[in-house]
């Protein structure tokens, strides 16, 4: 299941990341941050562009982006609560100087296995366990129903177990807790 064809210096052009994940990321940001959604989207993309040359696993780019976005949503909520802005102040709620986020931690062997999944399952599993999105949010991000998102996560996990990834250290993190859809 080796998909490690790429070397670290052959990242795809960022343009492709935007084209593939941008629309879903924007939907996610708008659904989480409302009218501040585009600001969160822009903050996320700029932070991602800044850190992009250091990204070691291009196949994880979608999950990585959503993980950054999830933190930007929280940052935006905190700033807004701390310092409410006058209505009409564009985009002030987010600190433009916040430091770039490092890529989220993940187990490389596990990711190699995840990367070999069919695209929709790979995306859904990454969003669930790297970006920590709920099934409803995964559905928004991928443009599917929450139920379809749940199935993609389920099928992806099932396939990982069939492939024997269950024995790899760290894959415990890839097990849905009982009632794992609790925050749907």
């Amino acid at each position, binding site marked *: 299941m080796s998909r490690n064809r790429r070397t670290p*210096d*052959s*990242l*795809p*052009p*960022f*343009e*492709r990341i*935007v*084209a593939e994940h*941008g*629309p879903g990321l*924007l939907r996610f940001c708008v659904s989480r941050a409302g009218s501040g959604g*585009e600001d969160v*989207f*822009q903050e996320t*993309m*700029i932070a991602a*562009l*800044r850190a*992009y*040359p250091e990204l070691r696993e291009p196949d994880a780019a979608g999950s990585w982006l959503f993980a950054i976005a999830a933190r930007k949503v929280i940052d935006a909520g905190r700033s807004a609560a701390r310092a409410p802005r006058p209505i009409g102040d564009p985009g002030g709620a987010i600190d433009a100087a916040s430091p770039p986020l490092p890529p989220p931690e993940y187990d490389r062997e596990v990711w190699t296995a995840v990367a070999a999944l069919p695209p929709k399952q790979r995306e859904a599993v990454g969003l669930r366990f790297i970006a920590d999105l709920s099934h409803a949010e995964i559905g928004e991000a991928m443009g599917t129903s929450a139920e379809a998102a749940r199935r993609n996560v389920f099928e992806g996990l099932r396939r990982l177990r069939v492939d024997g990834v269950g024995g790899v250290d760290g894959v415990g993190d890839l097990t849905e807790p009982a009632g794992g859809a609790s925050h749907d």
Partner: protein
Amino acid sequence: MSSDRSTPTDPDWDAIRARLASRAEREGLLDVAVERHESPLGGLLIAATADGVARLGLPSEDEDEVLAELAARVSPRVLRASRPALADARHQLDEYFAGNRRHFGVDLDWRLTNGFRRGVLEATAAIPYGETGTYTSVATAAGSPAAVRAAGTALATNPIPILIPCHRVLRSDGEIGNYRGGREAKVTLLELEAGGR
């Protein structure tokens, strides 16, 4: 261009992307800006770094491959965006194809070529509009009269065709020779320049 990834239909998407690109530019994160440009040859893809135009993709080239090449050889921070060097290049290309421009005054970034190949391309850039050179003459000008085949390779891998006019280099026996964008494109450009002389 051979591929055109389907783009979202949301009318706001283009505006949101444009805001992303201009902020990336302001923050110094836009290493390579690329734009499509329609021409009589077909769709061109033009890429500019902060130093100038570094790459011009001809219609015969796969757009995704050109973008991947830029990501690998210049920087992965590649975005579709405008930039003054691109606006200049597009305007001057329009004038050129209309027969109203004989010389390009666009900043070029030569980083995608080096060594002997760069020497060949610099010699090629010195061939005036409406005139032609030969593989032997550009090899000689680059300092290696015997390296005719290597000169051919340099021209075949010219990163900035049209702006570096490799179409003006013909075989010594008068045959038109190969062209990165195909023989037909080379003929079109030579006829354009013959008519505008």
